[in-house]
């Protein structure tokens, strides 16, 4: 399969690459992410976040989310980048404080199509997200 490029809007600068962890629905960092273990809790499974390019549509729920994102960095479990359809103040605050590259503008269709790819590269300067098989 060929690689695919998606144009994104960079909010927190940085280059990153890593395996993709994708979730098709809005997530709440409070309650759905355990920063100490560095995992995203999804349907009874614990999916590691460390070093991943974490892709989901947008945040929901508590304003405490920023604290949880920060704690991921503090415990050495931060994802290498976060890519969303829409960023909100809670997510932006968390990503800036944790210094996690953050970009918005991936469409929900593109998110549901991402299963075909396994790796992602974020080119911060170019505003490009490259998806690799």
């Amino acid at each position, binding site marked *: 399969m060929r690689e695919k490029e998606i144009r994104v809007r960079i909010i927190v600068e940085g280059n990153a690459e890593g395996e993709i962890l994708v979730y098709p629905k809005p997530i709440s960092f409070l309650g759905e992410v355990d920063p100490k273990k560095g995992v995203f809790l999804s349907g009874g499974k614990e999916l590691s976040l460390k070093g991943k390019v974490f892709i989901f549509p947008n945040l929901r729920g508590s304003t405490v989310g920023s*604290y949880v994102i920060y704690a991921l960095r503090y415990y050495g479990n931060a994802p290498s980048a976060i890519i969303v359809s829409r960023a909100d103040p809670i997510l932006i*605050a968390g990503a800036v404080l944790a210094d996690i590259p953050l970009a918005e503008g991936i469409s929900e269709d593109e998110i549901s199509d991402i299963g075909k790819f396994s790796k992602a590269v974020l080119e911060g300067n170019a505003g490009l997200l490259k998806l690799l098989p």
Partner: protein
Amino acid sequence: MYLTREEEAILNGKLGEATASALKVIVKVGEALGAERLVEIPHAHASGLSYMTIGDAGLTFLKSFLEKGAKVRTFSTVNPIGMDLELWKILGISKEFAEKQSEIVNAIIEMGFEPTFTCTPYLIRKPAMGEHLAWGESSAVAMANTYYGGRTNREGGPLALMSALTGRTYMAGLHLDENRIPTHEIVIDGSIELSDPAYAGALGYVVGEKLRGGIPLIRNVRMGFDSIKSYTAAAAASGDVALTYIEGVTPDYEWAIRQASSIERVHVEKREVAELVKTKLDEDVDAIFIGCPHADVDEVLSIYAMLSKCKKLRIPVWISTSRNAYMKLKDIGVIEKLEAIGAFVIRDTCPVVSPFVEARFKSIAVTSGKGFFYLPKMQKSRTIIIPFNRIGEIACEKKK
């Protein structure tokens, strides 16, 4: 975004690492929301400081900021925490929780926050008309905008903290005239007893549910301070309603009317509000909770007036308030009098953010639309609303 020379210097570390990273967050969020500049604020109010809600993640965050030398740069107050700092043992709070909560409290006091622990910061410092603020508690945000004509977005915990540490927020959202134009007119069909804060809270709950967001306008209602406080808190909880124009109340109401060229009408029927409020109990409740948002001195005095006809309460009444109000009530002997008949006054905390509730109370009656929204979610308690003006009859032992 345009930054002043001073702001550039702060970003480059002039005031230390903590201030620089706090300002960086505000700039980033502002840029993403299209802000063209920052604005200085005379009052920041930080929420999200209960160990029950922010846990170790939040504590870690606060401590690391403190290590980097964080200090507030404007008048800064804080929201309720997870326990009464004096009475936590009596509330059955665990030692471990109390220790973690105290660490959070020590960190924020060391940063220079006023130890207010209340969701009613407008009673500590009154916002002026048109003043720019950065507040994090949704009910306080709605009061600042609606009752005082101040200007604040709902910042959430960390962002309000960053504003406290820099004395600034970003010029976007409700700071700008164009985002303060009413979108919906609430038309109430039938007459509702809105002078009772419980009914006003139920109205807020219904308006929040119907609108989700938006800026409602209400004409021709009679609501006192306590009712407006209850209404705004509920509408901000069940919906994302941070500003309501109330005729005769909101300082920039006339301006708002002139701006609103097209306004959608939303009808609220009397029945929708009345059915949320139970005038008598079908079955008993474990407790009655009052003080969401925190009851002020006058409210506690009227509660006492209603309860004092009773020798011993049949249902315990819990009143949450600020330590500021608590001290005034203690000075005039009301705390002891309430305790003597079986009512408890707690400060610094509230039933929504304290772990003592879930352990003890499975069913609760409240006079608050906000409490009605959050208690079943946060504490898994069965919750009903009762009229404020009937708590005397409902809580009191039947006279034989």
